[in-house]
């Protein structure tokens, strides 16, 4: 079954280990500037949000590419760049609504998340599971359960309130 990257930013501690292991996995170097995932931070509010490719169904990067260098992996569903075809025009960088298509000014190449070919290292290393890899059909399961729990707690509180009247 196809799996998808699911980010729960509330769990993120802001440590940026995902950025580190991403660059080591793909490039053999430590350098967050080469990471496919990046934690956006509002430090004075304590808010950290990891951003990565959503692997869109109707993907703007794929649609806009003038030389059709971007295509979808048949097994895992991620979008990848064929560097033999890519002309480096950066149209995909401009069009991505999430800023998830990056440009590396050392190699002069665009780059994006490829789910590490099906075993995303950011997920493997994130101990708090702010970044998770879940079955596509179960994406909303966690949220559903949390909401159900909140509802149930509210109902119990309401019942207790009623009983005390």
């Amino acid at each position: 079954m196809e799996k998808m990257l699911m980010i729960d930013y509330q769990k993120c501690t802001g440590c940026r280990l995902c950025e580190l292991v991403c660059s080591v996995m793909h490039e053999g170097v430590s350098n967050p500037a080469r990471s496919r995932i990046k934690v956006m931070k509002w430090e004075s509010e304590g808010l950290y949000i990891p951003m990565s490719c959503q692997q869109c169904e109707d993907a703007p990067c794929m649609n806009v590419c003038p030389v059709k260098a971007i295509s979808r992996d048949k097994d895992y569903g991620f979008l990848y760049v064929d560097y033999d075809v890519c002309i480096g025009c950066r149209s995909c960088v401009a069009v991505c609504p999430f800023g998830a298509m990056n440009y590396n000014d050392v190699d002069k190449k665009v780059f994006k998340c490829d789910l590490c070919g099906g075993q995303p290292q950011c997920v493997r290393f994130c101990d708090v599971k702010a970044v998770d890899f879940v079955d596509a059909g179960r994406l909303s399961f966690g949220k559903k359960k949390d909401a159900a729990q909140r509802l149930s707690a509210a109902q119990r509180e309401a019942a207790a309130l009623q009983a005390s009247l």
Partner: protein
Amino acid sequence: MALDRKVAYIDLSKGEIEIRPIPLEVRKKFLGGRGLDAYLLYNHTKKGCNPLGPGNALMVSGGILCGTCASATSRTHVMAKSPLTNLIGSTNMGGFFSPEMAWAGFHHLVIKGKAKKPCYLWIHNGEIEIRDADNLWGKSVTETQWAIREELGDEDIKSLVIGPAGENLVRFANVMTGIKNAGGRTGMGCVMGSKNLKAIAARGTMDIKIAHPVEALEYNKRFIDQITSSKVNQTMGTLGTPFIWGATNTWGGVRTRNFQHNQCEYADDIEPERLDEIATETMGEHHMTGCFACQVHCRAQYKIPSGPFAGTYDEGPEYTTQCAFGAQPDTKNAVTVLTGNHLVNQYGMDCLETGSLISWAMELYEKGILTSKETDGMDLRFGNDEALLEMVERICYRKGFLGDTLADGGILAAEKIGKDSFEYLVQVKGMSNLNSDERATPALALNVATASRGSDHLRSRPAIDLYHLPEEVLRKIYSNPVPYDGPLTSEHTDYEGKPWQVFWQETCFMGVDSLGICKYHTTFLGPTLPNFEDWSRVLYYNTGLELTPEEIWTIAERCNNMERLFNLREGLIRDDLVKGDMLCHRYFDEPCTRGAPDVIGMTIDKEKFKKMLDEFYEHHGWDKNGVPLPKTLKRLDIEKEPSHLL
């Protein structure tokens, strides 16, 4: 490669910058971080230099693993001669600064001289620029950082800064980064202030090549699994260091009312669970945050729930802050602790020294040694929350007699206050003791007495001594990587074998500090965590440098001896109360008043303590006065220092 990160010499008087590679032979002798800083300090300062003069050298560094794919290589180290102790000044902090400096091409900075007017350093992809900081002077810790980002137009810049306390030359001012990552103790922020250096900003996008990336990744995963599976780190990741406060206070190991009690009673409001409740109420269920690449996430986020700072965001508090603004002044109020924490974070001032000195002044006020004349009318009694917080501000801005006096640290303050104020001061080498009470634990007492930077737990504390581990477990830990077949005992009130444990921990902590990783990732609070054997591998996978566990041990010993040589050069004398390896008289004369049966009534036996000290020196290869023997220096290849390799 991590090994190609450079050292920069910055002369602020002349405005000159020189960049040099760090030779491999130097790495093999001192690794990096604190170890190499100790070598640089000894080589770049002259005997008796004024800590606040242009002759003092300020070292800023990351460890040899800084920025690599080893676990939690976030630590930044800052070293100089201390204006608080006139001996070695050293501080080690987490956050995100040193990895950023490594991506910008540098592992070490040596900053000398004094700028004519406020300036800051801008380190960016192999280049360093000295910039004007007129518009930053006077700004708080976070204001300074955000202003630098705005000025340079990059939100990813990480800065090491001083707040108003550093500018006002408070002798225990911190260097700070982020919201609350604090380089506390020994006043390194004061040294920055004396050089008119407001900040060091870094931003880098240079690759750090990993020698064996696949192995480095896999070993990092193993490391993390080992670290996060330990109970102590799991608790740390939920409650932060306050969890230690809860356990220690229940047992009777928290200094209260300066040194009058060893337990803070009726303190429910500052228990770790209460602080956690406030963090949850104000920041939600997921309110823990961490340093670069660390999975322990031991730092809480919170908003101050009420009072004049209600709604203000900050991070912490730590164990020490609970003591400094809760137990020591006997205020026992969560809002006071959280507010005090916020103030010292924004002023850039050491919470421990601040809380300890105010509590000392409170005891002096109680005893009539200080009166309302010296306090400018303030009712400085224990338990007075308002007076406590007001004193924090007075110290930072050197307001009034007492604010100005305490800002100079305990030793100078005791000289100025006179009478028998010194008798009540709890310090070693001129630095206030940690707010824990070591009268029931000889090993921990030896640790605070001998710590190179003055009374301190992060140089050599065998904290696992309190766990009563089976002797064979202790032996497994403490006879690696070098053999030890002397006595070892699980009994924490004993004096037997403790000098070796302190010596071992001292070597272990120097190893960690030179590699640049956090102490929560080694044998400190958890007995199952990685040390020398694992470091040997992690070093090889990340940097390609092949060193055996024994070789890393010897390097750490060498670095500790460099610190010792510096302290001896600057006047350390074994039994001296101000400049020695000696505890203040209260440890020997005043028994513990509260706590568990194994604590109450305890004091340190002075004769046994001195015997421990002798034995501790012997393990080091030092003479009875604590001076390294010629054969020790020869063995460690530091006979001819300063040798100016770098």
